[in-house]
């Protein structure tokens, strides 16, 4: 029997506002535990929340970028449950009147573009951080937990997709695209290691052609897209095996162990959720009037697709270059800065897509972390353009710059890599080469012009690649014609 996986994703994004959602405590990552708290985010009796305007603006940006409909009125609800990381005993969230609904994000999967529907985008607050004491550091089997409330009340946006995703690979592509969009929007650093972007995945399988959805399980809090893809593959396989063996799938949360690659059930005791949502009386409704939306629209940063179009129409780049350069916010910013300093967009693009990307992939660093800044790259490009060094030497210098952080000028001077264009110096070398290789000279003069390459190679060898190839070619042809 042929099975079809059905996947829906829930993504939580911590916004990079300066202060928390409902109080003025600073939003930062890490630091000394329990130093960024106040009566509001510690839930002291009588403390009242007040909404952060900037967080709602960021929420608006996300909703617009995901092509959502923004109803004029949305309200906040209390989601009631007991958990130590939730001091109030409820999380302020949105329920049946979320900020935005019915959007979509188009994704490229296997060369085809498909739109993944967005069910809703809503605002809520993050919980505190638990540190589980015990052998494994995992919640199960820990003896007790320690709570750090610095994160409590950080603005958190939840994005829920429709179950429109049909493979683990497509889930990963969607997440990459979403993360890229969020980074261009300047609303979150999307740092998965630090938990500013987190993802839960709901997955079920059904026989191909079936309209009904199967029983789903949930993979929670996956902290890398690669693990989400792997975990989903594993869970889909497990579900198919169960169905093949005539077993029933139970709706539950499962844990994917990234080390063993195994799936195990989690929190089975806590599955009976009854959150008793009711309107949050401490917060008045949020009205997204036309002028408020227009204001947010006016502040929208340029999205990757728009940047790509501009690179083609204004910079004259091929579409392929434009797509690669806008696949990552830092890379795109790197390119923009380099072009503004250097001018020649295609040359900049070639170096970034070739040398820089190769280095970044190898070293596992981002464009923003690279030691070679756009200014440093542009200095190198200037040296190649002026003929101080050849393009090939330039590549070697670039590698050196990445490794040592030195400037192009410093490396060229230290290693003596300046290109030799000086005719006198080259003339004497060419003379030697011609004298030492009479048979090749004969071949050339007999009409075998390809032999010129041999001579160029010889000159290059003697100069350590520093000879200016154009000059060498010209001089060689002159001498050989004599």
């Amino acid at each position: 029997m042929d099975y079809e996986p059905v996947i829906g994703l829930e993504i939580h994004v911590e916004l990079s506002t300066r202060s928390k959602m409902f109080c003025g405590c600073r939003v930062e990552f890490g630091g000394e535990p329990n130093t960024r708290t106040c009566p509001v985010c510690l839930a002291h009796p009588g403390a009242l929340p007040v909404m952060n305007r900037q967080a709602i603006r960021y929420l608006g940006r996300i909703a617009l970028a995901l092509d959502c409909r923004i109803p004029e009125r949305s309200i906040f609800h209390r989601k009631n449950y007991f958990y130590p990381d939730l001091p109030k005993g409820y999380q302020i969230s949105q329920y049946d009147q979320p900020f935005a609904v019915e959007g979509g994000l188009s994704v490229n999967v296997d060369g085809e573009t498909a739109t993944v529907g967005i069910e809703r985008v809503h605002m809520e607050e993050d919980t505190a951080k638990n540190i589980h004491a015990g052998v494994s550091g995992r919640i199960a089997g820990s003896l007790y937990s320690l709570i750090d409330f610095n994160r409590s009340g950080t603005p958190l946006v939840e994005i829920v997709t429709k179950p429109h995703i049909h493979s683990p690979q497509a889930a990963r592509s969607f997440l990459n695209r979403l993360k890229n969009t969020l980074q261009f929007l300047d609303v979150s650093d999307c740092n998965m290691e630090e938990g500013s972007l987190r993802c839960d995945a709901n997955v079920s399988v059904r026989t191909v052609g079936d309209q009904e959805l199967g029983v789903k399980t949930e993979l929670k809090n996956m902290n890398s897209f690669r693990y989400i893809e792997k975990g989903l593959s594993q869970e889909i396989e497990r579900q198919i095996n169960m169905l093949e063996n005539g077993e029933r799938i139970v709706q539950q949360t499962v844990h994917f162990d990234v080390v063993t690659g195994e799936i195990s059930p989690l929190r089975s005791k806590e599955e009976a959720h009854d959150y008793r949502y009711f309107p949050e009386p401490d917060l008045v409704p949020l009205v997204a009037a036309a002028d408020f939306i227009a204001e947010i629209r006016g502040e929208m940063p340029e999205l990757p697709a728009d940047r790509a179009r501009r690179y083609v129409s204004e910079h004259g780049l091929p579409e392929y270059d434009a797509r690669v350069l806008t696949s990552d916010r830092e890379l795109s910013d790197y390119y923009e800065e380099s072009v503004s300093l250097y001018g020649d967009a295609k040359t900049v693009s070639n170096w970034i897509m070739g040398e820089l990307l190769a280095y970044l992939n190898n070293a596992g660093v981002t464009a923003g972390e690279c030691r070679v800044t756009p200014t440093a790259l542009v200095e190198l490009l200037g040296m190649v353009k002026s003929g101080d060094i050849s393009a090939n030497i330039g590549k070697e210098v670039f590698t050196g710059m990445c490794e040592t952080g030195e400037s192009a000028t410093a490396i060229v001077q230290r290693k003596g890599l300046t290109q030799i264009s000086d005719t006198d110096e080259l003339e004497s070398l060419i003379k030697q080469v011609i004298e030492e290789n009479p048979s090749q000279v004969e071949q050339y003069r007999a009409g075998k012009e390809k032999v010129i390459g041999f001579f160029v190679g010889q000159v290059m060898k003697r100069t350590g690649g520093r000879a200016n190839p154009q000059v060498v070619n010209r001089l060689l042809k002159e001498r050989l014609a004599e």
Partner: protein
Amino acid sequence: MVNHDDVRYVAGLAKLKLAEEELDRYAVQLSTILNHINKIAELDLDGVEPTSHVLKLTNVFREDEPQSSISQEAALANGPEVEGNAFRVPAIVRK
């Protein structure tokens, strides 16, 4: 009419332990409250939007300006159990 199972369920959600005789008492009290609320259903409410808030206010915001927090010592002073720089709570998932 609220029965004993309903009371037990609601008490469980609120992490309350009730004695047998309390089940009777709360079943009656909760029923009275629900009956009172159900009175509203006797009215003709066609075209009346549910009221989520009684105030006419909307969009009450604060600007995104960080304010000073309370000290770590003051924060932890309210914890029944504290270890080092954090609140300490019993094991979250029991085996």
